[in-house]
């Protein structure tokens, strides 16, 4: 599997670290209800198909939001996390 780094282009999977669903970018307010934290920390859509997830490109230090198909491992695109749609 090869993934897209927004800076470096297509790179081998070995260069990346996976950090789970991109909802990690949507951190609730500190005072949010327990249910919001439960959704953030634990519950997942877990799609069989297209998903958006966070990958860290170890060599250049970029956090990327990668769109990937969990059935085929096909990578559809990626954006720098800082610029990604939330």
């Amino acid at each position, binding site marked *: 599997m090869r993934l897209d780094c927004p800076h470096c282009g297509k790179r081998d999977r070995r260069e990346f670290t996976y950090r789970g669903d991109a909802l990690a970018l949507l951190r609730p307010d500190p005072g949010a209800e327990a249910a919001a934290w439960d959704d953030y920390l634990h519950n997942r859509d877990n*799609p069989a198909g297209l998903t958006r997830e966070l990958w860290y490109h170890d060599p250049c230090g970029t956090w990327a939001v990668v769109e990937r198909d969990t059935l085929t491992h096909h990578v559809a695109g990626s954006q720098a996390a800082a610029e990604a749609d939330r």
Partner: protein
Amino acid sequence: MRYSGLRVLAEGLRGNKGWGPAWRDPEPKASYDIVIIGGGGHGLSTAYYLAKQHGLTNIAVLEKGYLGGGNVGRNTTIVRANYGLPGNSEFYSHSLKLWEGLEQDLNYNVMHSQRGIINLFHSDGARDAAARRGNAMINQGDDAILLDRNGVRDLLPYLDFDNIRFPIYGGLYHPRGGTARHDAVAWGYARGADSRGVDLIQNCEVTGIDIENGQVTGVQTSRGPIRAKKVAMVVAGRSGQVAALAGMRLPIESHVLQAFVTEGLKPVLDNVITFGAGHFYISQSDKGGLVFGGDLDLYASYAARGNLPTAEHVVEAAITLMPMVGKARMLRSWGGIMDMSPDGSPIIDKTHIDGLYLNCGWCYGGFKAVPGSGFAYAHLIAQDRPHESAARYRLDRFRTGAGLMDEEATGSQHNLH
């Protein structure tokens, strides 16, 4: 039909013409008291114990493929009770006791072999952790022996003891741990459930869950609608999709785990060995193949195949630990889809919908749980209260934070357990 040594002999003399199918292939009825979604190890054992322990037999197990075609037939078959935290300790202890009587109970040879498991450690800190875990196992009533370096050398002389990065300091030995024949476990439970009247329905995918006024009323399937008073979900890696049919979002992320087998060899490896520091474990099957595996591929996946980097890592760890493995030729590798939970421990619970039950979150350790999970899930479904061995496997522990069971202390990230 009862199986016995005498019967095998008699059939052998009569050209094996007297064997019948081990279970029926019934058409689905219009309604059942209980519908179980998923004909893996856990679904089949649940049906068996509902019939045997609770006398309930108006039950269907709905399987979208064929019985035993999921993870129950893809795993590396390790059976153990060496957990360290309350919740898991009592559950896996109970499950191992069921294993120990399983072949007599099912009248089926599942080739359960208590050949012993050795978890190696490579530092003082890891030795302390192993001693603590061993004490937890002993307190639970199970068996654990802390081996020093020479103790390990007596059992496993072929390991590389002087590896600079991972010198072997000792191991935690669990003599009652071992392996079993995975397919036989599915088949044995299937036969036991079928002979008590449970309908096992294959090629039947559940595509909808019917709910009226907060009460489950049945399911939609690829073979038509089926009404049911109670519906039990137990679909391992597909838990997210099936629960979504009931509008639920689960604390589960599905990941691929690979396994590998070599060509058949003469007996070289008597026990199960785990090399946790290198993410590797190995045993030898009764056919002679070395069966081994390692970590997840570490990203969400529903493809029942993995990627090369993990395969490379596993093989590197194998050769680091036991250089002789390098001489064997690898035959096959494959993958299965794991229902990873945020604390690495499972869920056996009711849902907020009346009559709908949830069993999931087995991560990569659910084969050894097949008897215990079926036993506890059957109890929950039949009596609407948890069995004492699984009372801590609550769904709400994630929301409340009370009673999380994070054996590896890695925090709430699904792929790190």
